[in-house]
């Protein structure tokens, strides 16, 4: 009996990790079903939404284990999605043991979303690329890169303080607009192109793409709620910039 309880926890942990990192709902349900069947349950029913998941596992002896897990935080970590996906496939092909899967899943859970100065500086390079793509000069791009890196540092600090996602986006965008406003007082540049590049690092790319993929696989609930999330983040970015620009008198 104890063993079954542990297997239920394992399946639930895999689903939780995937949802927290922003995987598509069909992948979460499919992974839980695949792992549950590999663990020896005769029937597995999973139901996932972006904010929580439910699962029923039918054991061969007729007992049914039902669990609910509420998902309260989320972050972008595609590497964890890829690893959980590979783990669940290896587990259902019986290439790795239950203990190994548990150890790996716990490691991924403790690791969370690793933050580093390197990620923030390279992310600033994304702002540079966008400024070039929208027709800015190399000098504009350089300023956008620095601003973008600072924006990423600010949002990762806010994330650690568990500030809500929308406020993170608004404050990050306000910081970007404020910095660019300051820079453009001193130097002749294209402030709009620089701000645009810098706030692109806040774009809700994961929410947008998973929303589309959820909708097309018929997951209307999470498709619509993720579209709403992407829209709300975009509006938050726009209001952060708009607030600073109107205070700055432009």
């Amino acid at each position: 009996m104890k063993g079954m309880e542990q297997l239920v926890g394992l399946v639930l942990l895999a689903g939780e990790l995937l949802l927290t990192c922003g995987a598509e709902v069909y992948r979460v349900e499919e992974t839980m079903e695949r792992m549950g069947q590999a663990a020896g349950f005769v029937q597995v029913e999973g139901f996932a939404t972006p904010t929580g998941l439910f699962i029923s596992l039918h054991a061969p002896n007729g007992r049914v284990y039902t669990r609910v897990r509420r998902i309260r935080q989320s972050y972008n970590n595609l590497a964890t999605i890829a690893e959980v996906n590979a783990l669940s496939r290896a587990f259902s092909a019986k290439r790795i043991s239950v203990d190994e899967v548990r150890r790996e899943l716990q490691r991924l859970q403790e690791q969370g979303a690793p933050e580093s100065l390197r990620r923030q500086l390279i992310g600033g390079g994304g702002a540079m690329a966008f400024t070039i793509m929208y027709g800015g000069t190399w000098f504009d791009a350089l300023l956008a890169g620095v601003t973008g890196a600072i924006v990423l540092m600010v949002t990762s600090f806010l994330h650690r303080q568990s500030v809500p996602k929308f406020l993170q986006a608004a404050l990050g965008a306000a910081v970007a607009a404020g910095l660019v406003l300051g820079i453009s007082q001193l130097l002749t540049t294209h402030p709009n192109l620089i701000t645009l590049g810098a706030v692109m690092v806040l774009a809700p790319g994961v929410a947008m793409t998973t929303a589309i993929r959820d909708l097309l696989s018929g997951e209307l609930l999470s498709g619509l709620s993720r579209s709403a999330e992407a829209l709300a983040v975009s509006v938050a970015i726009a209001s952060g910039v708009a607030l600073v620009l109107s205070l700055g008198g432009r």
Partner: protein
Amino acid sequence: MVTQILAGFVGALTFSYIYRVPASQRMYAGAVGSLGWTISLSARQGGGELLGVFLAAIAVAVCSEVLARRRQQPVLVFLIPGVIPLVPGGKAYLTMLSFLQQDYVDAVGLLVSTILMAGAVAAGIIITSSTFRVYSRTKYLRR
């Protein structure tokens, strides 16, 4: 043009760090993004912006689906950084500026254009991924 192709590559590559794409897949994600941006720029000169991003989104989604199967990764790993250059961020920014300057006629026009561009990207991904899904499902049933 070479600068733009490179900018598309760097854009997708650096965004793959922001979204924490597995280290071994980042170069591929960058290449997908570069391809999408190049297509959308070239098609823009011929048939307009909307057609450009629609075709680019199809190309990005096809590459992501193929790469995902070849390299045994979730599609999202290539798709998310790949579509980032196609996101109408510039249009959205101009929309915001026009609203701020109380230039509502321009603002609504830009807003509609932003929504249409985002819709074209979504449509490109939906059409491609559904086609791939039909294919992989029949393959699964045959086994």
